[in-house]
């Protein structure tokens, strides 16, 4: 619904010429990048994301209107690292060099990110990702927002230099707010130190690294392939051995498989949002972490 309203606003902006010249229309692939773009752009930009928040962005199937949105956009922000490969085909269809790879208004937000689990292009899937170019869930480390917003800022300042100072100020204000929150979150999550966690999909390495969380295993080791019985048996065994009480799942991941593992090992299922809008009340980048950290700490407190 956030997407719809964002889109309506964006289309309205286009319908009224004076207004459209004022504000920069930005298209992002995911809601997380939309939220971060809004943080930098403030009221100077209108941002819309292509993938609805409750869908798996890695399996998104673009719609004809997405091409239209790209044609109207002045800036494109994507996740990169093979996470949103489908956008390349959309860009080819839209045929706008400015927002295509190498253009001045094309932002690969993963630029200059410290990538985890990088294997090189030649190595096949081994731990939940077919991505040789590294694990793409980097926005789940709040520290990485610094780099992502810097990438967005650079491009915004390039296409709208008149407002560059405003964008810079917006970004600084946002990062200050985020950093004070980050200190809070680190204290809250220190309660989960040495507490083993099992995830459904390997979406959490950046999150785990920042908050020192121990993800010991994943249910789905190859994307789209159901787990084999011996793999599940191994997970349940190591969960029992290490007294794992938390199994993490995202809203779009199969409920029954996760509940099955959790029941066998006597653990609780915690549903976390890996993207803005995937759960209620995760309206922007900061509340995404608020909701997830609240869910984790309350699950850890329930013994």
């Amino acid at each position: 619904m956030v997407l719809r309203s964002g889109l309506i606003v964006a289309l309205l902006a286009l319908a009224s010429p004076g207004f459209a010249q004022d504000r920069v229309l930005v298209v992002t692939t995911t809601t997380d990048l939309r939220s971060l773009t809004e943080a930098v752009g403030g009221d100077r930009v209108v941002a819309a994301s292509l993938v609805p928040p409750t869908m798996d962005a890695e399996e998104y199937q673009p719609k004809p209107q997405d091409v239209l949105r790209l044609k109207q956009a002045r800036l494109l922000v994507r996740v990169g690292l093979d996470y949103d490969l489908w956008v390349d085909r959309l860009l080819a269809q839209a045929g706008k060099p400015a927002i295509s790879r190498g253009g001045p208004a094309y932002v690969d937000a993963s630029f200059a990110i410290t990538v985890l689990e990088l294997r090189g292009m030649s190595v096949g899937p081994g731990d939940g990702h077919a991505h040789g170019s590294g694990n793409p869930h980097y926005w789940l480390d709040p520290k990485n927002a610094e780099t992502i917003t810097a990438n967005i800022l650079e491009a915004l300042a390039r296409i709208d230099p008149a407002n560059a100072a405003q964008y810079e100020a917006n970004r600084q204000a946002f990062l200050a707010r985020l950093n004070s929150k980050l200190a809070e979150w680190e204290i809250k999550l220190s309660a989960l130190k040495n507490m083993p966690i099992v995830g459904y999909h390997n979406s959490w390495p950046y999150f785990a690294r920042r908050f020192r969380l121990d993800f010991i295993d994943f249910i789905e080791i190859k994307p789209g392939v159901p787990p084999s019985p011996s793999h599940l048996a191994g997970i349940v065994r190591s969960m029992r051995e290490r007294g794992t009480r938390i199994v993490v799942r995202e809203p779009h991941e199969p409920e029954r498989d996760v509940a099955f593992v959790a029941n066998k090992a006597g653990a609780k299922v915690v549903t976390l949002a890996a993207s803005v809008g995937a759960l209620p009340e995760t309206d922007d980048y900061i509340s995404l972490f608020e909701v997830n950290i609240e869910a984790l700490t309350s699950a850890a407190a329930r013994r």
Partner: protein
Amino acid sequence: MNDALQFLWPSFLVAVVLVGIHAYFGIQVLARKVIFVDLALAQIAALGATVAFMLGHPAQSIATYGYSLTFTLLAAVLLAFTRAWATRVPQEALIGVIYVVAAAMAILLIDRAPQGAEHLKQILTGNILTSGLNELAVIVPLYAAVGLLHWLLRRHMTGVGSLVWEFLFYATFGIVVTSSVAIAGVLLVFSFLIIPAAIGVMFGELLSRQLAIGWIVGTFVSAAGLAASFAFDLPTGAAMVCAFGVSLALAGMLYPFLRDNRRWAMRSAISTARWIGAAILAGSALQLAAAPRADQPLIDMAEYAIPSLRALYFTRAEATTFADASEHAERYRREAEQLNEMERRNRTQGQALDDFSVARISSFMKSYGEMRKGEQFVMGEVRARARERVRWGASFGLLALSVLVAPVRWRRHQSTDKTNKQC
């Protein structure tokens, strides 16, 4: 082993129950020639659940079940009529249309409510591995009731009765299929439905005999599929479907031995096998001669199974280079894994690494990945060159082998024409 049993017995019980009801329905479905009706019914039920979801009912509620059931019953009415309508267009075509339209409508609806995508997926892709006693508690009484109803009405369930009986058949079948698909997924339910029934029909005349064969085969093959999935670390549903496929192929090979003249069957089986072997060998010979650097499925498979076969055509220098590259590739893989493991451990243990150190680790891992790819390229190149060198001799050898394997009686070829008959 203990682990395996503990994990697999609930799935096995579920499989036995599913085979129990679906082998029966499968025989009926085969007799009516409506093979894909289960897919259509499952899709219609999913469409009903999607509509319920769109109207705001939670996934597991009575209302959602009610919608599914209503849609299934409506589809049963439609299906009961399809036989009457199917005069110039085959009934299967109408069933296929029902299936694709229901699937497409569900997608269109889902498009309006993004949260539903996962919901729809869960209705149609159950996982038998994570099913168990909870599911059994629902399906055992339900399927027993359906089975009893069909037994009581067995005289009317022959597929030639009035529309009412046809409706009843499709309605009960729809209810069964809908619950089964949510547990085991579309692919596996289709196998449960068709394969034991097909084997039963092949080897039995009476319904009771067909059923008994279907049940025995279904139970045995389910157990084999589950065991293979555990032993070889495979996704369970897919492993079971393949086990059922293999069982049908074996039954097909066994069929002539039990039905026809055994000696003739044996002779024709051997000569078919020899023709197939000869064709594979001759094809491989041509492939090697024409494109020695391309994939050579037969040779590649043989070398994968027995790596020492390479010694037959590698020179000593080639063998050394190959072994060296293989060793290095493995070393780079290990090094990269060690680095990754170190970074992973460091997320929770010890002093946290700063971004710079992690970036360094990542860059090393990437380099190791590329170096490994380089070594693999060397291995491929050495092998391709060696094969290029021996292409003519080896192709000739394979061709000669193919001629030997082919069941042609060379000696009497000139004396009598009739002995050249290739069965």
